[in-house]
């Protein structure tokens, strides 16, 4: 058997694929964060809570109303998106134009409140969500067993990432958005409703997080605290990619998934730290991130 640094090639290929899958998750989460920061200059510390809300809603809607996975895939992001619009309208709007630290503290507070209230209701042991029947089982590849569900996660996450990037960078709507946040008065003059655009952008960003949450529901233990740990990693991804760079967030997300996967193979105890190590190194040499524009 071919060995690379004492690890069989087959195992390594499996780890690369797993890393790629996790990377797709990171990409989806950091994408929403990058959009919110890039277009609205809001440091959204409630992003992890929105991811958790997506997963929790999926479980709760199934348990109480029998809403199935496919419906949840649309409903949960929609509901969380509306919730996001409300937060933007009632809270974030009031501190628009202030220093970044205000939005950071406000969203962090919102996240703690959401998490605390839900912990009181649902506890911390985790809610169970059965894998949808059509995804049960998997394919036996040469080097690993690939569950169907993980394959689906890669495909759908990449599609959504690409679609979002395309919409913002290549379409007229995206152009309005970018222009509206660049010079809102001018755009108002052209008859564009900029405040609405801002609310919708925040709503869309957190809806992406909720979408990732729905994808996570069948494979991770769904708990009110599940977003808190993920959030920090995803922030590191965004910083490495370059705050606000949308394409950068996607590519970096996948890269970090793979790097983390490899660390889990060669030296597992470092796997929770490796992304931050990369962040330190990147910030030393490129303070605006790998794909950020030099300030």
């Amino acid at each position: 058997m071919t060995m690379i640094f004492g690890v069989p090639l087959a195992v390594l290929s499996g780890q690369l694929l797993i890393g790629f899958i996790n990377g797709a998750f990171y990409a989806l989460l950091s994408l929403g964060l990058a959009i919110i920061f890039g277009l609205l200059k809001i440091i959204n510390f409630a992003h992890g809570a929105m991811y958790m809300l997506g997963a929790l809603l999926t479980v709760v809607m199934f348990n109480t109303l029998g809403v199935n996975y496919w419906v949840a895939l649309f409903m949960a992001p929609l509901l969380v998106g509306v919730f996001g619009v409300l937060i933007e309208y009632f809270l974030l709007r009031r501190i628009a134009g202030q220093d970044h630290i205000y939005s950071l503290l406000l969203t962090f507070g919102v996240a703690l409140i959401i998490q605390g209230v839900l912990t009181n209701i649902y506890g911390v042991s985790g809610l169970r969500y059965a894998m949808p029947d059509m995804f049960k089982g998997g394919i036996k590849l040469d080097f690993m067993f690939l569950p169907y569900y993980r394959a689906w996660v890669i495909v759908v996450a990449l599609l959504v990432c690409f679609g979002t990037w395309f919409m913002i960078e290549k379409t007229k709507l995206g152009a309005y958005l970018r222009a509206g946040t660049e010079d809102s008065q001018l755009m108002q003059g052209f008859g564009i409703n900029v405040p609405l655009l801002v609310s919708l952008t925040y709503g869309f960003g957190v809806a992406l997080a909720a979408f990732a949450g729905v994808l996570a529901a069948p494979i991770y233990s769904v708990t009110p605290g599940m977003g808190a740990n993920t959030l920090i990693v995803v922030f590191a991804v965004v910083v490495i990619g370059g705050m606000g760079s949308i394409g950068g967030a996607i590519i970096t997300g996948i890269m970090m998934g793979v790097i983390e996967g490899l660390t889990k193979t060669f030296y597992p105890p470092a796997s929770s730290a490796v992304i931050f190590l990369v962040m330190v190194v990147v910030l030393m040499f490129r303070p605006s991130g790998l794909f950020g524009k030099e300030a």
Partner: protein
Amino acid sequence: MTMTKKLLTSAVASALMVSGAQAAISDNTVKIGYLADMSGTYRDLAGPNGLKALQMAIKDFGGTVNGAKIEVLSADDRNNPDASSSTVRRWVENDKVDMVAGLVASSVTIAVSKILEENDRLGIVSGSAASSITNEHCTPNHIHYVYDTYPLANGTASAVVKEGGKSWYLMTADYAFGHALEADVTRVVEANGGEIVGSVRHPFPTQDFSSFVLQAQASGADVVGLANAGSDTTNAITTASEFGVTQAGQTLAALLLFLTDVHALGVDTAQGIQLTTGWYWDMNDATREWSDRFMKETGVRPTMVHAGIYSSTLHYLNAVAAAGSDDAQTVRKQMMDTPINDMFATNGRIREDGRMVHDMYLAEVKTPAESKNEWDLYKILRTIPADEAYRPLSESKCKLVTN
């Protein structure tokens, strides 16, 4: 004159000393501080429902002890030894707390027990796992009541090896508790003729176990042993099930699994997993009767930790009443001299190292066909007698044990 004065003073002093030792209950109040994880990873297995169990015990005892009031304070340990230490310091110095109950994360317990020893108050540990709490970290001021890593390894690991699971791959939570459990499991597996063929120490906490599950599959071991707890264990089991670990012929052995974890996983995912527990709600009439009352209070079935908090609090209050004192050493001695026979334990006894030894149980998670309702989760396979389950005193490193 001076002679008389001296005599008189010493007479008064000795009278005071006698009354100090025998002594009535200080401030005519028994104060209990409940310290547990109220909001984090270990909330459900102890947490707010543990406080309810404690209050049930006080109510069942009658609300007062020898005419003295019983008061309860509670605090969130936040799984943080430093924060917990300052809470307990405040409790003993300002609030005159006599006994600290709950005590969940092993790191918190080890830190807090030092403060209890300095101030000569009592701690009754119901949630912690590390067997070192009554071994190298033992003090004359605490009692470890429900379970520890020694019987967990002894029960589950030896049963699995005897069933033919000779080669093991271990997934260990990379902190004190995981390392202790890993050491205990390795000892038991090797003593029974098995071997550890590979292991991975994963960060605490870890959400995605797919990478580690893949490594465990590649190792070709008969058994994948999980030396972790809480959400780490449930996430590992969920991922193992997704990647078809058991279908491919490997056995999963979860070394520490609470009722709340199994409930969260559901019998579909968790069926067939073997585990060791100190108590189960559906064992006999006494356990069922108490669990029904607990469920009325909380809406859920109790874990072994909840039951242990109830039982140990009653045992403590009985000892205070019998000794007529809330002095830590007097009460501890009284507790050691009295065997424990209640809904939690039969012939349980507290050893000089502070370990409460009682029968443990090897259980298996029921299949969906066997499980009649959402809390009907275990079948008990075997009772592990107290003397076989816990670390014998002859192997003890505790300073209170003279070999």
